[in-house]
């Protein structure tokens, strides 16, 4: 199969991109894969973001003709963000919500945070560090193939999670 990007070299890589819940697959050669990886990993990310964003906002309309959205807190405009790929302040997330939502979906495939949260109380921290400690011990037990201990630790972790869910 030929590379879908340059249509010259043999495709040796498969790049999966999340589009919503769908995974789109592209077949690329090493050269194009490296270029793609560089875009994804380096400062060139802003080019990728602008291309995603212009695809969302309609790339045929010149920026100045679009209605300009401005962040009320930092005065960053939507077209500035499109160009740089960087937001001006945390408030921009609200100001550009409409444009950011599809962009975040395209980058991450999901738009609901599932990870840690800033700490509110010391209790929460104590619970969390206990949880992390148990998780580490469990991984160690698994690594040592001590499955009995691992199962006990897993049960403790579950109990802890249940307690947290109640609180």
């Amino acid at each position: 199969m030929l590379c879908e990007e340059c249509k010259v070299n043999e495709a040796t890589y498969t790049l999966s991109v999340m589009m919503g819940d769908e995974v789109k697959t592209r077949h690329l050669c090493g050269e194009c894969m490296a270029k793609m990886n560089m875009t994804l990993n380096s400062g060139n990310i802003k080019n990728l973001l602008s291309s995603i964003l212009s695809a969302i906002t309609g790339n045929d309309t010149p920026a100045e003709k679009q209605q300009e959205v401005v962040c009320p807190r930092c005065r960053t405009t939507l077209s500035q963000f499109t160009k740089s790929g960087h937001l001006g302040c945390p408030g921009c997330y609200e100001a550009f919500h409409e444009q950011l939502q599809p962009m975040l979906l395209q980058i991450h495939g999901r738009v609901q945070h599932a990870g840690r949260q800033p700490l509110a109380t010391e209790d929460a921290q104590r619970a969390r560090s206990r949880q992390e400690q148990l998780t580490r011990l469990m991984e160690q037990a698994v690594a040592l193939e001590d499955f009995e201990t691992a199962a006990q630790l897993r049960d403790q972790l579950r109990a802890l999670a249940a307690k947290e869910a109640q609180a």
Partner: protein
Amino acid sequence: MTNGTVLSSRVRLARNYEDLPFDTGKKPEEAATCISRTANALALSGLGDGFQLIRLNTLTDTQRKALAESRLISKDLLREPETAAVLLRHEDAVSVMINEEDHLRIQAVRPGLDLLGAASACFRVDDALSRQVAFAFDKQLGYLTACPTNTGTGMRASLLMHLPMLTVCKQMGNVGQIVAKVGLTIRGVYGEGNEALGNLYQVSNQVTLGRTEQELISAVTAVGHQLKDMEAVLREKTFTTSRVTLEDTIFRAWGLMKFARIMPLKEFFKHWSGVRLGAELGLLPVSLETVDALLEQCQDANLQAQAETTLSGILLDAKRALTIRKALK
């Protein structure tokens, strides 16, 4: 035989203050606020002991670059040295970079495959700070970052891996597929563009939103194990089928590293990989620690920092050769 394929594990968390604009590196007043607020918060949290506040404008250019080569700070932190700072705990390589792309980048590096250890170290700093200060956070989107590619957990978990056999046997295409399938990326650590000098690669998570930190870490760890196994299989195979060729590569590298008088950087990376492979296979009388330390010591800024003078061209390459010879004696 698989010992040591993973050199180190690194976790980075992006955090921002709710009330400050991003890109503080270009805004001296806000940058100063960021530095003092972070240093104070860490001191008040009781976790400040052992951390040293280093303002990058108090260092020479060489000293700054040497910190980046040692991976204690990111290259990006060097972009605005007038406003950038780092809270650094040298003993276990934990750092809080201030005024990078985000207000804070909390980073921890652990030897070998230990992303959980690195993450725990980051989380301890994160928790300590978040009890004192308000980070930009949204219930739906998680931690808000300057670039939407980091939104959510704000976390990058990465492994530094030495994969000489996968490279030589042209298997990196396969590897790219495996890695992309699970939402991770792999790229060369040293060199320009396509290069992976020293056959050193970094595997890390690409997405940051919608997965827990544990999920992301498990994904990277699983791929780390998989690559390690693939590399090991190829090593076994090569060791049985073309032992002489493999040994020749290793012992040639060993000879050059032990005896060369001038060692350009690119050549160093090439032979470094051969020596590391030899050490991993138990063929050379040298420890992995010694070999890995060379990676840091032999880069340009570290050599210059050590020489306390600006070396270039042949003098720099001669200094590099000398450093290697001393280490491998």
